[in-house]
């Protein structure tokens, strides 16, 4: 999934953050910043009651480091110098959370905790109603902007993790094995997309030339979807193996897949197919003039 990445100016536009808001934050800064250490303390008091605390903050050194980072986070917040550097710090917070697997829940609860404490502090100030309203609006806007940046970068890392996982799976997914001299087997499990079809094609053809294979069994009993695109890939693979003098047998066609292929109108005329692997192996051995006999 793509993430639309906005720079600092575009983010300010999106949240309607104006010079007026920044000024309001600056006015509030001297009062608020004094309270932050107390807030951090009360936040960790609450955090200690959660399961996450033991997992992430039990080590005193870590705890100390995280608390210090939190202080500088809010300092930066009240400086309200929203430039690309500011956005980058927020982004890295989300990325760190995603990498260590800290849930969004805890982070969002934290934001809410701090925001309500700031509002509390704000409301007891002896300021005009107008000024208080202005500061409150500014606080809301910037807190929400921070939240969006952090949540989005969190999501970005999670997506990267998923992509990496699927790449690993993909790399393991074309295990061509030699069953017997001249006989190769490739069981395919999962999905066949154009990239994987290409992998299968490359791997198979290489193996055929290396091992002088005469028969090749492609077992698709683990493939859930055989649509016309997948069928097209399979047909191409069988054609290419045939050109290399190797017969391809596709095994493991389930009843539902077989019926659907017929209804789609796919012509499987020249491709050898079997319902299960056993039948395919029998055909292949026959071709190799071999027979499995009981001792």
């Amino acid at each position, binding site marked *: 999934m793509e993430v639309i990445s906005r720079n600092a100016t575009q983010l300010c536009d999106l949240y309607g953050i104006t010079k007026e808001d920044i000024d309001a934050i600056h006015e509030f800064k001297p009062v608020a910043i004094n309270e932050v250490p107390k807030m951090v303390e009360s936040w960790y008091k609450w955090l200690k009651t959660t399961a996450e605390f033991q997992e992430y903050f039990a080590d005193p050194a870590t705890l100390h480091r995280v608390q210090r980072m939190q202080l500088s986070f809010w300092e930066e917040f009240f400086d309200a110098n929203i430039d690309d550097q500011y956005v980058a710090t927020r982004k890295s917070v989300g990325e760190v959370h995603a990498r260590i697997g800290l849930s969004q829940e805890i982070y969002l609860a934290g934001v809410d905790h701090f925001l309500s404490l700031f509002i509390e502090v704000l409301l007891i100030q002896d300021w005009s109603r107008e000024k208080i309203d202005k500061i409150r609006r500014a606080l809301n806007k910037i807190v929400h902007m921070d939240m969006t940046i952090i949540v989005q970068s969190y999501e970005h890392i999670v997506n990267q993790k998923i992509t990496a996982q699927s790449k690993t799976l993909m790399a393991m997914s074309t295990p061509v094995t030699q069953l017997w001299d001249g006989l190769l087997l490739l069981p395919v499990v999962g999905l066949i997309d154009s990239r994987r079809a290409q992998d299968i094609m490359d791997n198979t053809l290489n193996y055929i030339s290396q091992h002088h294979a005469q028969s090749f069994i492609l077992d698709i009993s683990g493939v859930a979807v055989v649509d016309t*695109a997948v069928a097209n890939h399979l047909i191409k693979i069988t054609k290419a193996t045939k050109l290399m003098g190797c017969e391809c047998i596709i095994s493991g066609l389930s*009843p539902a897949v077989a019926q659907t292929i017929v209804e*789609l109108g796919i012509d499987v005329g020249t491709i050898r197919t079997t319902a299960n692997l056993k039948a395919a192996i029998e055909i292949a051995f026959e071709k190799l003039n071999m027979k499995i006999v009981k001792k």
Partner: protein
Amino acid sequence: MTIRIKSENDIHYASHEAMNFAKDIGMNTLETTKVSIIISELAYNIIKYAESGFVRFSKVSTHKNEGILIEAIDNGPSIKDIEKALKDNYSTGGSLGLGLPGIKRISDLLEINSTPETGTHIKVTYWKK
């Protein structure tokens, strides 16, 4: 449920979700297989011809039938000749040319609206047997 289709991964996700959806409304293995094929053919066409678009599926019922309505929506160049596109082995994209005619055979109702101005909107209905 509406799913954005932009890459091959989205096709798999959409057909996976559609399969679960079909299962939930009580379809059997053959029926869910067909539903997932319809989705993946439509989604594949979106990527091939329009680059991106949406597929949507929902439950439909009449007094005697219950089934699934599958839609594919894109703003691509549109299908120039719908009649030809429904003929077997006709493809402008170098593939088997069985996607749309296949869907027509598998499904119970196929409706295609396609103009260069409005893009393409395909509706497929498949009744539980």
